[in-house]
């Protein structure tokens, strides 16, 4: 267990020193701040676009970090062979994989917190500048704490995407891993369409296959409550817990599979 913590700490420390990670987070913060200017264009919908853009930027940048850094976690060590000396120390391959995963998750959650802080800061400025009449016309208050629910689920989604990226990187090339992880991400959002493919295509077998794929793939659309919180529609605690629990099971499944694959591999 200690080994997992040490490795996770190592990943986190690397990420603090990584200029690319900083760049991405900075870019996200910039995007959120600039949404303030965009708000002028939307005919009074300023709070909506700031919220939409802030949530989308946090999610999008988070996914980019999760995929690209997630894939590098294992591949970089194996390619550069720094893993040779590491595995001669008292750390098993399983502890290695789990430690790397937890380190990146920690990094992502902290990045997400930074983005949330920037997000609420911009909204606070907007709220301060707005006249009471305008505030009354908003679907939900500017500094609505319910948006934290959306961010929490974004965090869960990022944990799932990271696990997926890590899984593919234990056995395939970086390029293929990126492609497969993004494929899962996109399919995970297509949920409804896959479930009801028989509405679109003729073939029954194809629709059955699609429905099967839908149930096997993680349902990322369930973790997406951005639209609800922006419009002030309530998201039930049960929904949040159920979606998170399902995601948690998937994460466990993917990580166990990853450790199994990695443990059996010859490290050339």
């Amino acid at each position: 267990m200690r080994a997992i913590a040490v490795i996770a700490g190592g990943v986190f420390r690397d990420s603090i020193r990584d200029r690319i990670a900083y760049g991405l987070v900075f870019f996200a913060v910039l995007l959120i701040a600039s949404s303030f200017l965009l708000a002028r264009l939307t005919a009074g919908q300023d709070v909506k676009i700031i919220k939409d853009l802030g949530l989308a930027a946090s999610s999008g940048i988070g996914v980019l970090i999760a995929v690209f850094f997630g894939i590098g976690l294992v591949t970089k060590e194996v390619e550069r062979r720094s893993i040779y000396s590491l595995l001669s120390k008292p750390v098993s391959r399983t502890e290695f994989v789990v430690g790397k995963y937890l380190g990146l998750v920690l990094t992502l959650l902290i990045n997400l917190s930074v983005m949330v802080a920037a997000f609420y800061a911009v909204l606070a400025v907007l709220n301060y500048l707005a006249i009471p009449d305008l505030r009354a016309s908003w679907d939900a208050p500017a500094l609505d704490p319910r948006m934290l629910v959306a961010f929490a689920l974004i965090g869960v989604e990022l944990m799932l995407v990271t696990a997926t990226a890590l899984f593919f990187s234990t056995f395939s090339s970086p390029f293929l891993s990126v492609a497969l992880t993004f494929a899962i991400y996109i399919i995970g959002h297509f949920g409804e369409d896959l479930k009801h493919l028989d509405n679109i295509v003729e073939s029954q077998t194809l629709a059955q296959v699609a429905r099967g794929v839908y149930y096997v793939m993680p349902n990322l659309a369930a973790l997406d409550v951005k639209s609800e919180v922006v419009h002030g529609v309530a998201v039930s605690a049960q929904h949040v817990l159920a979606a998170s629990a399902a995601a948690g099971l998937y994460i466990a499944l993917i990580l166990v599979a990853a450790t199994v694959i990695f443990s059996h591999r010859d490290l050339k």
Partner: protein
Amino acid sequence: MDAISIEGLTKHYRVGFWRPRPYVALDGLTLGVQPGEIFGFLGPNGAGKTTTLKLLMQLIYPTAGRAEILGAHVGDASVKRRIGYLPENPYFYDNLTAEELLEYFARLFGYSAAEGRRRASSLLDEVGIGPERRFALRRFSKGMVQRVGIAQALINDPEIVFLDEPMSGLDPLGRREVRELILRLRDKGRTVFFSSHVLSDAEALCSRVAIVVNGRLVATGSLDELTAFEAKGWELVVNGLPGAVLDGLRSSVSGATRLGDGRYALTLPPSAAPEPVIAALSAAGARVVSLTPLRATLEDVFVEQVRAASADRSKATLAS
């Protein structure tokens, strides 16, 4: 109990995509290493030395056979606490400093932060890394990385140290320092298993060696045992030898090298005793400067074994 015990260790790779053929990297290696030895694992490039080390470190898994370290199977977690490993052409984490790397590894063994710092500091002293220890590893030369590599292999004061090409990248001063370090380890009662293709290092350090060629063990034993059968005759250095006398001695001398005016180095075959030749030379007025028995060097043994193994292999391929 053997410090290291290897039995029938075999590794096949599958090469090729459509009709994979097996490539034999290691074939039935069996050997044992005693505690407190410095054991040299020698062979030409591609012989299977690094493969063996990777099998011992469980970086790859054997096709057949087994290996034990300190009485426990190599896969055991307890084994890793008591060994150290330096990989070939090591690469560590570029953005860490030398100190940070050693402290990171120390944490994996469970040492406290203070203990880790202490060990890191003293090991870096021992391998000759000075104030550069605070620089990121990406700025280190190959030789300096090698020294850090040796330091990290010793961070837990291991009972057995596995070194893959430990002298690689080091200048002559560095090589001497590492040699001394290895000897110090032996003096402390540690076991050292190192692989190399640089024979002079093995000659200087090892109590026993093994030679692998093409994945097979072809010779093993102490240096004396291996070189014993290869007495090669004598070297006689004489002064004041007239050319005419030399011509007369051609039959009993297998080689002559002129070192200067009247000064020759004569090679006498092992079959002939040197005394009659010396008598003849003295009678001719030459003075003997030195008489040295020629023993086979490890290099001779090595080259011999490699050639024999290639001959076997080509015979095998011709026959099939």
